């Protein structure tokens, strides 16, 4: 059965690129949902059954790290796995993201193979 992924990125272009890379990676997602920042992502998670989240870090309104913190405090959605997908992949930032529950990180630029490898372990 297909699954649902939520892509969180303030760039419409990058959301399209990530969607394309997911298809190229051969991962069977029935539904690809999108959000433009962390706040929108919380709203989408509250209204949909989502299997995994791919989230940028640097975003306006609510960053990826703020999104992780808010999500961790909501019992209904706190267990949904999140993978950061960002240009920001310094050890300090990734450690902070993992301390808030992130399950991994993918650096931009990325390849479909890297997405498959990272998400394959979570699905």
């Amino acid at each position, binding site marked *: 059965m297909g699954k649902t992924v939520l892509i969180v990125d303030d760039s*419409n272009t990058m959301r399209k690129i990530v969607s394309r890379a997911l298809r190229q990676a051969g991962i069977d997602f029935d539904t690809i949902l999108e959000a433009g920042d962390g706040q929108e992502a919380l709203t989408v998670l509250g209204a949909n059954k989502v299997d995994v989240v791919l989230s940028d870090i640097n975003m306006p309104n609510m960053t990826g790290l703020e999104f992780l913190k808010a999500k961790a405090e909501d019992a209904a959605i706190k267990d949904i796995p999140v993978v950061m997908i960002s240009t*920001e992949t310094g050890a300090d930032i990734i450690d902070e993201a993992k301390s808030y529950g992130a399950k991994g990180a993918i650096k931009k630029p990325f390849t479909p193979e890297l997405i498959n490898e990272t998400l394959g372990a979570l699905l």
Partner: protein
Amino acid sequence: MDHAQHIIESTQEIFSSMIMLDVTPGEPFKRNNEALTNSISGIIGMAGATKGLLAIHLPEKSALAVTTAFLGMDVDSIDEDVRDAVGELANMLGGSLKAVLDPNGSEIQLSMPSAIHGEEYSVDCLAGAKTITVPFQFDDHSFTVELQLRQED
């Protein structure tokens, strides 16, 4: 490795993996604040231990070709998709340079990317900054990537 080489490697990696375009670097040079014409620039600022900016400057036709390849759909005018794509290119280039300058990721903060487009505009150099610009070519198109860095004392 010098910054020009970092720019070359980062740009080639981003274009080959995300846009499926092979870009060829030219000889790095120092830009002298001359105006950019009929172009679009994606810019990302750096603050913290190292201040500066990273910019990618594309003539309009090059920006359309890059965005068409980036999105996999025809784009024939400078619209929101092009501005967003060029900003995202600057974002990825800034992230790649930050990974070199600040491996732990906590000493340099990157701004949100922005894009400037116009018939004639300037992107001036920061006072006291060291600058390097690398030209690139693909097919019949060209663009430049510029780095300005000012190390704090």
